[in-house]
């Protein structure tokens, strides 16, 4: 009888330990309700917002200093590939809550500048976007308005950054992971700038308006 009770306890301990190991939710990312509106003709609209300068994490700096390198103490190698600009931001929903982190790269090849985004939302997965940039970059647009690095400016500028490859000059949604793995669609990227400080840091918002459908 003693041996039976000992073995019974051992089995309970072994199976209970293994069951706990697999049933406990070791990673549980908190998530907010997604602010998605469904279109009558199909597709889901969702807006992501970045507030400048407070949401900046990293900026490799654009030629001409607009926008400027951030953080100021970041060390970049002198032999960086030309024509590449890297940015990372905290990402908000339309209500202003921080819900993820976004990375944006631009690269110029054969006179065409392509921009790509990864929007990483821990509770939902990552969403991958890319678009062709207009022929003039942000620095060009600002320079055209007489703005340059080292000069403070206040005002209002709206810059549409998407110029294809999807219809109506929108960018392309290319899926992602988890919730977004089978999402396709289009998006618009809009910069609404309200100022630049003397160090070349921009003030304003970046809006990403996505329209996605599930790829069957």
């Amino acid at each position: 009888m003693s041996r039976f009770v000992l073995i019974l306890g051992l089995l309970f301990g072994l199976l209970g330990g293994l069951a706990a190991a697999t049933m406990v939710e070791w990673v549980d990312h908190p998530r907010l309700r997604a602010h998605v509106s469904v279109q009558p003709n199909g597709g889901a609209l969702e807006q992501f917002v970045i507030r400048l300068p407070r949401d900046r994490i990293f900026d490799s700096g654009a030629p001409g200093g607009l926008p400027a390198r951030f953080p100021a103490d970041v060390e970049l190698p002198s032999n960086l590939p030309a024509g590449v600009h890297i940015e990372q931001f905290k990402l908000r929903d339309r209500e202003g809550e921080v819900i993820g982190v976004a990375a944006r790269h631009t690269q110029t090849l054969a006179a065409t500048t392509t921009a790509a985004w990864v929007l990483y939302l821990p509770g939902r997965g990552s969403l991958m976007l890319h678009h062709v940039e207009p022929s003039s970059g942000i620095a060009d647009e600002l320079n055209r308005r007489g703005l340059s690095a080292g000069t403070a400016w206040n005002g209002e500028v709206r810059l549409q950054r998407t110029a294809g490859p999807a219809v109506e000059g929108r960018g392309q949604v290319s899926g992602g992971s988890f919730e977004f793995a089978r999402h396709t669609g289009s998006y618009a990227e809009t910069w609404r700038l309200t100022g630049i400080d003397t160090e070349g840091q921009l003030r304003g918002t970046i809006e990403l308006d996505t329209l996605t459908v599930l790829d069957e």
Partner: protein
Amino acid sequence: MKYFMLFVVGLLLGALLSAAVLWFNPLTAESPTAPVLGHGISAELHTSLRSEDAPLLTHGGERLLLTRPASVPELWEDLIRPMIASVQWLRDAEGTVIGTASRLGAYSRQTDPLRTGVIVESTWLLSVDGAGMAFAVQRENLWPMLKEVMLPALLRREPWQGDLHFTPAAGPRPDGAAQLLGISGRLAGAEGQLVSTYRISAFDPRVGPTGLEWYSVLSLPQAEVAVAGE
């Protein structure tokens, strides 16, 4: 009372046995075979945790991992606290910078000590000089590295030094490789794979890994690239 005590002793022994099963669990061990790379175009990319390779490294402040540079914003907000964000310079075998990468990741909800291991889910944005840009979705099982290096160093409270290689490939492709999707240039539209191997040489229980390098192979089928380039 005697039987209750015996049951409790059995329960404790069973719990210890389950811990041993989890420690030596073959389901969460490193796969003995690395993913097979497809035929076509391939490129070897190398980066590390050194400041000259990783100018940006940030997280929620609770991880055993250094942040860089000193003034980098922490990911302190509730929803992004589990995340790690980094910028990496990618080098070829000669050490020349041939590309850049942003890596965003977090521990995955698929983490399960019995069936999958400690899973980290990352999405990469890669810019390869002269070739174009690509996305990569990568799932890695870090349990073998935690078990061999980090947990022993943390338990002993002593720095670890050595030279171990791990290929923690865990998907999302069926062969365990990361899923690669070309965006622009010669990579536009191509679907391929990315396989990363970690080389760990130093771990300090106070600051985390101090010697860590990645060797990644990016592979794309030739035919798809040729079609995309036409």
